[in-house]
């Protein structure tokens, strides 16, 4: 049985789907260049994976892209040029942070819009409050029955 065990273990290790992401042999000797490559890799999507950057992914495609990024960097491309190259080849889908365009305007401006509309709404409400109600309006609005019930609740808790 030992040989069977050995084969199973070897096979699993060879056929394992969870290969590590960045492989030792991919790493560039130039630390600065490697640092740029890692930073770029975090911004790029592994297109066959679900929501993984090529830096995290163990898929063969991600490896190819990582090697490609490093090749472009070694050839002297700037970060922007590498990104442009990949977008030209694979489309906007490759970017984990979409560029600002007509199609993504709502995405980028949406949160700020919510914030502004909320702030504006608050401002208007605050002004209307001040105009409509005097300080007397802030009093109790409970019916007598509710008031009795409430004081009963309060009374029981704080004897």
């Amino acid at each position, binding site marked *: 049985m030992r040989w069977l065990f050995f084969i199973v273990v070897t096979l699993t290790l060879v056929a394992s789907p969870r290969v590590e992401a960045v492989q030792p042999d991919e790493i560039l000797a130039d630390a600065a260049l490697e640092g740029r490559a890692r930073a770029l890799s975090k911004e790029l999507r592994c297109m066959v994976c679900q929501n993984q950057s090529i830096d995290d992914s163990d898929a063969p495609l991600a490896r190819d892209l990582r090697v490609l990024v490093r090749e472009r960097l070694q050839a002297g491309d700037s970060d922007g040029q590498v990104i442009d190259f990949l977008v030209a080849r694979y489309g906007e889908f490759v970017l984990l942070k979409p560029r600002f365009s007509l*199609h993504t305007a709502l995405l980028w401006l949406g949160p700020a819009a919510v914030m502004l509309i909320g702030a504006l709404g608050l401002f208007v409400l605050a002004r209307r409050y001040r105009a409509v109600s005097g300080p007397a309006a802030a009093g109790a609005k409970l019916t007598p029955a509710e008031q009795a019930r409430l004081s009963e609740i309060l009374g029981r808790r704080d004897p």
Partner: protein
Amino acid sequence: MIAEFGHYALVLALALALVQAIVPIVGVRKNDPVLMAVAGPTAVAQLFFIALAFGALTICYVRSDFSVVNVFENSHSAKPLIYKISGVWGNHEGSMLLWVLILSLFGALVALFGGNLPARLKANVLAVQSWIAVAFVLFILVTSNPFLRILQPPFEGRDLNPILQDPGLAIHPPLLYLGYVGLSISFSFAIAALIDGRIDAAWARWVRPWTLLAWMFLTLGIAMGSYWAYYTLGWGGWWFWDPVENASFMPWLAATALLHSALVMEKRNALKVWTILLAILAFSLSLIGTFLVRSGVLTSVHAFATDPTRGVFILAILVLFIGGSLALFALRAPLLKQGGLFAPVSREGALVLNNLFLVSACATVFVGTLYPLALEALTGEKISVGAPFFNATFGPLFVPLLIAMPFGPLLAWKRGDLLGVAQRLVGAAAVGAITVAVIFAMEGGGPILVPFAIGLALYVMAGALTEIVERTGLLKVPLMTAFARARGLPRSAWGGAFAHFGLGLTLLGIIGETQWGIERIAELKPGQTISIRRYDLQFDGMTTRQGPNYRELAAHFTVRRHGDVVGIMEPAKRSFPSRGSSTTETALMTRGFSQLYLSLGDPNPDGSLAVRLYYKPLVLLIWFGAVVMVVGGGLSLSDRRLRVGAPKPARSKTVLAPAE
């Protein structure tokens, strides 16, 4: 028989849910106390029958009854008992059953502990709660029946996905669902109030503890899931802005906002309409989360289901509940009277600001999660929205919130004194400023943001303690007096301080891990050493081991610090013959709040082994901070002022007559 028994119990639960959904409402309309009183016992009975169904499925799993399709597809006879049990909810059908179980649990809790609720409110709340139950039990019975049989039962099951065979599965989904589904109570209260067209201060007293309870579970569930992903996925990440994570994060943000606005409503009788809307939104986001995960609309790491009929069914539920509740809100909200005026600079004003930021943050996550789906559906264009987007948009929204956070609890109700509060926060600000200077000097260059982020975290933590320090007179009066005063403080004050302090801890952990983490990728042969920080790890060799349903190849590392052995680390690769798949088991060594993280790559033909080694400073603070937040929630919940959910003491000693 057991499976059929469970199936039948589920059908009975549906019938009970229908009764509970209709009769009490009729009772409220007709002002008939008998019809209204139907709600309570039915809610308990509904829980009983759903629990029976759940128990039946669990028995099928424990007995490895492979004539049941669900068990066959997700279990294996050699699986350890704990994974047989947790495997019940490690699949689509079973997890939906857990969902309705928790839904009916909350309904029953309201029925049992809601003795002092006004009868009309209680009847309405339980009826609304049951509308949700009807929809989801029907969903299970029609599209996701876990009790279906196979005509010719196989001898062995297909086993559970090995990644899910982890204690995390036993804890994470139940906690998360208790949070997610717990928000249904706030929703039911909101709808009940809208149906009746009135809310009072007692209403807020009731809603806040339930929201707090759900929020605590949700916080724990998210933190637990994050830690699980961290140690199981093998590349050291703990938050991926994955749509499924966002699905749980959005209700958390909304629930956090709801907690704070309910505070204003309870204390000052203001923000009623807004609180109701938030309660609706929080549960709607839970439903949207359920839809995203369960419909398979985004096939991501967590998604198991890809059957479109399910998606359409949940979408229908979604439209019905969210659309219906918002329509009701639009119709009824104008009837609700506003009360409790306040100046912009006041505790209320601070809480409104908190809500503005949290809701905007929630909207950011919402837009980012759904935008790619919407864009592809509308134009066919495919874009990706991932971690870099969220980091760029979410951070700027949270920073001002964190700066403002210590101000809130120090401001007075109605009209606050901003300058006075700022003066009281000088101490906290000094702590932050000194930290910035010290870190800046230590780093000597490097990213300029790091010292400021650490300073912000310490300012938040010091700010959270400011109120406690002031109220106990610590540093001014003798220690014993301060201690006595600390004991006398209301628990809710402690709760708020803990929760805010916890957020600071989490922030500190996040910055420490992301900015100071070190990574080493290397190929090692036995006998070779890899070094990180002050630690040297020597690769001693590989061993093979046999687990209950897997084989394991483990690498043995001796960890030394300045030459002294501090421990061993054994990362491993497990292979599961039943599915022909394998998992990577990372090895973790905890040093204070920091961790060494080691995971295995592939062995090379020349006998060397690829390893990834990380030093993760302060990483444990990320989750420890969440635990501190939950402790804060618990303290606040145990405050006597809030203990409305507690059972009433018996008014009179009734002697039970023996049954004749």
